[in-house]
């Protein structure tokens, strides 16, 4: 049976990817949960890994592992080649100018903390302002709150409307000559809203601010071109991009990174160490103290190869189709309210059911083999805006199918009957 089910409006010939073939690339999807085929719809939290990524990491440890940038021996050279080779893949994937602009970090959260600590403490003075949006993930709120506490700056928040879209007039009004940093999500993890980043960046630049884009939900789903977005920093995690956990990317404009002080000190980030002072290494190594997560970087490189082989635009088109199908189903489902109805949306269906708590829905769906997230999605201000304590979130990835969405709605129906 084709996983495309019987969705009438899809022109299968126009589809440039084969969901059935893609599913076979992911070993974890071939299992049952509670005796039913696993329907994994928690990609917003973390995506599954294709065989090529798993194999790249295991091959690296079987044949090439050593420390990077250190030895003259063969294995060290191979490890370095794989590590730096992945950096070039990342550069190309987000269209950065040079690999000097690609810093490997632990994940999106660490990247934001790095910018807040290094760029922030250097450039932010008392009375300055940092502007966020109401839809940010906690990881794009708390590092800035900490920076404000340390620097005496003020946090400003641009509100969203009831569709979950940023209110552009309010955003414009909040930008002023005291605004130093603007931090915005590419795609909201709780709502699926795609922000008009290019426009927001232009407006922020006109006010003289630098812009950090939280791309945790952006990079895996839509084309990310940092030159086109014109942002100053772009950050994302590998594990939502079909890569391993514990590794992520900080993209920063070379001139900004160059002028920033190191964040953590240690080996690899220095040229010379003397007790009366040390000379720091060039970019990007200045920000990569200590032995890095080499296997993670190798896995990220393999994940980018995988995504690129399918084509990020094809993934975007397919996931938009899935979202459209799911949104249409949701509109026919009684007692269901979709949270986040932005006109530009990607890959995320957040919802609540009348009279049933999201936690109970999550457990009930799990009994149907369906994995969704139930909770506040680390975006408590968003929950507050919509007057709910939590939502259920189905988030789609490249391997999801229309028949899985049918399973989701059958599960929702059963859940409503069970708790009704």
């Amino acid at each position: 049976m084709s996983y495309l089910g019987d969705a009438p409006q899809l022109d299968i010939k126009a589809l440039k990817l084969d969901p059935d073939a893609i599913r076979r690339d992911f070993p974890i999807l071939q299992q049952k949960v509670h005796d039913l085929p696993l329907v994994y719809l928690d990609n917003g939290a973390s995506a599954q890994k294709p065989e090529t990524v798993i194999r790249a990491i295991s091959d690296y440890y079987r044949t090439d592992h050593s420390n990077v940038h250190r030895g003259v021996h063969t294995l060290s050279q191979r490890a370095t080649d794989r590590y730096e080779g992945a950096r070039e893949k990342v550069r190309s994937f987000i269209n950065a100018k040079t690999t000097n602009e690609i810093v490997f970090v632990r994940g999106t959260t660490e990247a934001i903390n790095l910018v807040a600590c290094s760029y922030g403490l250097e450039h932010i003075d008392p009375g300055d302002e940092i502007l966020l949006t109401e839809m940010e993930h906690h990881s794009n709120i708390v590092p800035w709150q900490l920076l404000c506490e340390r620097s005496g700056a003020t946090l400003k928040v641009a509100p969203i409307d009831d569709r979950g879209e940023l209110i552009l007039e309010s955003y414009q009004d909040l930008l002023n000559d005291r605004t130093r940093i603007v931090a915005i999500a590419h795609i909201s993890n709780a709502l699926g809203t795609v922000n008009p980043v290019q426009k927001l960046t232009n407006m922020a630049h006109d006010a003289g601010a630098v812009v950090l884009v939280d791309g945790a939900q952006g990079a895996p789903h839509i084309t990310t071109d940092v030159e086109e977005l014109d942002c100053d920093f772009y950050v994302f995690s590998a594990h939502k991009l079909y890569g391993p956990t514990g590794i992520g990317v900080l993209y920063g404009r070379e001139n900004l990174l160059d002028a920033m002080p190191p964040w953590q000190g240690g080996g690899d980030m220095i040229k010379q160490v003397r007790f009366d002072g040390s000379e720091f290494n060039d970019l990007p190594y200045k920000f990569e103290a200590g032995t890095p997560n080499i296997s993670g970087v190798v896995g990220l490189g393999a994940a980018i190869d995988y995504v690129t082989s399918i084509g990020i635009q094809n993934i975007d088109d397919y996931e938009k189709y899935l979202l459209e199908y799911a949104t249409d189903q949701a509109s026919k489902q009684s007692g269901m309210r979709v949270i986040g109805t932005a006109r530009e949306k990607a890959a995320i269906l957040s919802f609540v059911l009348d009279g049933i708590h999201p936690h109970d829905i999550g457990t009930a769906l799990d009994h149907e083999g369906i994995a969704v997230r139930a909770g506040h999605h680390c975006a408590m201000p968003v929950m507050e805006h919509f007057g709910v304590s939590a939502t259920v979130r189905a988030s789609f990835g490249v391997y999801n199918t229309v028949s899985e969405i049918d399973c989701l709605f059958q599960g929702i129906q059963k859940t409503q009957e069970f708790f009704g």
Partner: protein
Amino acid sequence: MNSLRELYQEVIMDHNRNPRNHGVLCDASHKGKGFNPLCGDELELYLYVNKESIIEEIRFQGKGCAISTASASIMTETLRGRSVNEAEKYFHEFRALMTGEAREVDQNFDLGKLEVLNGVSEYPARVKCATLAWHTLLAALEGDTNPARTEY
């Protein structure tokens, strides 16, 4: 959904639909606030403890899932009229039931209706839902004004 029924027993569904002792107690001698950071659920607990250390009145309100609402409701039913010492004993026994630890106090302790929540122990991610009211109870009795958080 048969195995789901083992978790959501009829008594739980009933207490979720019609929570007992629900609401605010204006002349409370002890108040507690509970917060589950995992899901953002909140619970407020009100007690009136008399001079003989008997819980004369106990009420709760808040928003929560079926497990947390039913657990709070059954807790209030169980503890009304009992002494503070007995309530603390119930706390330890109930927590042991949820976490699957050996009963700390008394192997023969009768948890009564609370036993219907036994199935929750099979769902580690949901144990906090069931214990939120109890942690709030302990914080209220100890006079801790900070929101109680579940631990597991």
